[in-house]
């Protein structure tokens, strides 16, 4: 144990930092906890049983999941290439990948409409292929994917970078093809990073409001036309019920985020121990 015990030497610096730290912790924790504890378990349960609510939560979970799966399929190979190869403009490219994180999300929605809207290139192509975009689940998925896939790519890249390249070299000399070496060595060794990146991507997609609101207000989903949960929260807030009407669903969404967050930390912690 090299860590100093804070209570043994309460010097001024430690005291000041503890006070400041406590303030920011309270700032982060109080609003969500107050929202959760303001509703009784019964109210939350009844809210969950409301068709409008559960279908919107299911839609959001489902769309974020599809976005994450597509992100895995397309993002993991890119992450591997970035981790293993040096090429001109690589740093710049890595910066570009993070642009969706900093773009205003309403702007993301507009930008997506310019490509996927039915009057534009990809939109026409998708229409001809029988896939609609605006106000469809596919639009929700694409909006979520755009804003959240950088988290997966970055995390997977770090995971692959942590795998000693000599392990892949050994695998090759032992008779493994590049494919076998990737699937038997690199991927299993990087999977914790990929998994935690996936959880982060899913959670980010799940909570997206702006981009989804622009491209898909109401979407048909298993017979209903629900909106995603973050949009429903806004609609409830703007309804005559106001803050009170929005509160139980908000509590539910915070709970879902907490569960995902704890799952993520558990995965990451086990990864460190191994």
């Amino acid at each position, binding site marked *: 144990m090299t860590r100093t015990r804070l209570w043994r030497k309460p010097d001024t610096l430690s005291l000041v930092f503890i006070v400041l730290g406590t303030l920011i912790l309270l700032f982060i924790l109080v609003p969500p906890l107050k929202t959760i504890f303001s509703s009784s378990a019964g109210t939350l349960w009844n809210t969950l049983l409301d068709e409008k609510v559960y279908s919107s939560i299911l839609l959001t979970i489902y769309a974020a999941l599809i976005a994450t799966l597509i992100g895995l399929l397309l993002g993991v190979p890119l992450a591997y290439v970035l981790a293993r190869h040096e090429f001109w403009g690589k740093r710049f490219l890595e910066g570009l990948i993070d642009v969706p994180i900093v773009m205003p999300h309403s702007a993301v929605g507009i930008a997506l409409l310019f490509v996927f809207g039915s009057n534009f290139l990809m939109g026409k192509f998708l229409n001809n292929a029988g896939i609609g975009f605006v106000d469809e689940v596919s639009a929700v998925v694409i909006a979520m994917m755009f804003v959240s896939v950088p988290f997966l790519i970055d995390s997977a890249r770090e995971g692959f970078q942590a795998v*000693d390249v*000599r*392990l892949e*070299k*050994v*695998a*090759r*000399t*032992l*008779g*493994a*093809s590049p494919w*076998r070496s990737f699937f*038997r*060595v690199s991927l*299993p*060794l990087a999977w914790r990073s990929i998994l935690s990146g996936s959880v982060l991507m899913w959670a980010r997609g799940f909570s997206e409001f702006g981009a989804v609101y622009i491209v898909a207000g109401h979407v048909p989903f298993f017979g209903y036309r629900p909106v995603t949960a973050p949009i429903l929260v806004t609609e409830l807030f703007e309804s005559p019920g106001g803050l009170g009407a929005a509160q139980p669903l908000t509590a539910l969404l915070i709970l879902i985020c907490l569960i995902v967050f704890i799952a993520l930390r558990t995965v990451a912690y086990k990864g460190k121990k*191994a």
Partner: protein
Amino acid sequence: MIAIKNLKVDLGDFLLRDINLDIEQGEYFIVLGPTGAGKTVLLEAIAGLYPVVEGGIWIDGREVTSLNPEKRGVGIVYQDQILFPHLPVKENISFGLKAMKCPTRDIKPRVDSMAEVLGITPLLGRSPPTLSGGESQKVALARALVTEPAVLLLDEPLSALDPETKERMQRELAEIHRRLKVTIIHVTHDFEEAVALGHRVAVLNDGRIVQVGTPEDILRQPNSEFIARFALSRNIFAGEVSDAGDGDAFIDIGGIKLMGITELRGRVHLSLRPEDILISREPLQSTARNSLEGTVTNIADRGAVMYVTVSVPPDFICLITRQALKELDLRKGVKVWTTFKASAVHIF
């Protein structure tokens, strides 16, 4: 048999060039060089892990220059952290057999027999992170050897081990080589390792091979600054252990016997640091067990220190200060006594 002709590998900031080597079937071949000389690059080029710009590589008469690593029949063992950490020892060893589509019923017997050869049967069920450095190294050897490679490439395989394990592993490498008769190319920066294991040694410096020969040749007529400096820093002799008892041993190095401390028997090498040898005009009464009379044949001035060659024979190089040289009035042809402790004789 490995033949390398005019090999050139370009890594952008590093160039390996004009590499010509012929390595015999079953030879224990050492590539010796300082850090940054390109030893690993040479090994990895042989394994097919770097594209070759010019020249070619032949393994057992077959040109492999443009073949992928998995088609070359080479095994490689690196210095450290080289096992697949997510696979148990057993599956580390069977990895190559599975990749090569070896029939399932043959895998277990081949893994078991290789584990027995290396004495790692008890480790088969363990997980790599729980193994010691020496154990990991043996598993890595088993993993490479089980695929019966035409050549085994060892990249500083002993450098990450503690001195005791290193000595044991060095003996085991020699034993494995003797039993399996596999061709080995072993790169190292450690001269003693090269002398102890190598049939022949190639000295690599700054991406070029500067000398190839037996360890003795290279030591006697060093062709590079790296070896010359090393040759001055150690007295190295080949010898045979005789009259061994209880840890103490007499080592015959061609006419004269030195006393050392070792458990080794038979043919050995020994090294003695020049600074561990005392020079006197009269025999010394002391606890040091080795005292030999000889003649000063050469004095090399290296500024603050002097290297004095005393021929017993053989020649011993001794390091003394300028002041000591003056006080003892050492000149060529003077008779002197050299004295050193049995524990100063490093036997390997």
